[in-house]
């Protein structure tokens, strides 16, 4: 089982750019990019909560557990 990040979907739905999200949440644009591509080892609850607040969504909208191919 692996965790897939659906941040790009939420950003598209909310019509927000990665750069703007990074600025509001307080992390670098590079980290947003790494998060979108799933190349991070984890996400702090604080960061997740801020992203959910900005994008007006739930953690389940951003993270999905899928079976490994």
């Amino acid at each position: 089982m692996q965790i897939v990040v659906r941040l790009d979907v939420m950003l598209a739905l909310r019509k927000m750019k990665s750069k703007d999200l990074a600025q509001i949440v307080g992390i670098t644009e590079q980290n947003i990019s790494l998060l979108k591509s799933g190349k991070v080892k984890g996400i702090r609850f604080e960061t997740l909560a801020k992203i959910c607040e900005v994008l007006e969504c739930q953690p389940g909208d951003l993270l999905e557990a899928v079976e490994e191919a």
Partner: protein
Amino acid sequence: MLYDPRLARLARIMNVGVWVGLMSLPLSFFWVVFTDGLAAAALSDAFSEIHISPDMPLATGVAVLAVGSFALIAAMAALWHMHRLLMCYQSGEAISPRTARIILRIGQSLLVAALMSILSVPIQTVLLTLHNPTGQRSVAIGIDTQDMGFVLAGGLLVLIGWVMREAVGLAEDNAAIV
């Protein structure tokens, strides 16, 4: 990155001390050479526990100095690595693979300096008494508090270097968490 500006400031101050050590160690070495410190009389003062023949050739004095230089070189290597570490701290680099490696090198250099210091005493005393009449040759073995200090400090820094390597791994893992 270092967040406390005091660390960079202290590193800068300590670097001055390290440079003084790096300059003064070879200067003291050359001072011995150029102030007749290799002569039998001068060496008798330095090695008061053994009898040195007044007919000891200068080449023996040079050999004694050469043996003693190994510990000096190792000590200078430790100081050089300290300089490299302090330069990293000055630039804000604290927990990195490079600083972990340098700390390990400082520890290893101090251990080598202690070992060379301990080994040099018997070798030097054999050389110094080689020209004595039969029955008046001797070998001295000694470990002083400075040697013990180098062993403890060196061993501790080797351990800290290994721990820093683990810390670097943890820091890299932490950096991968957004």
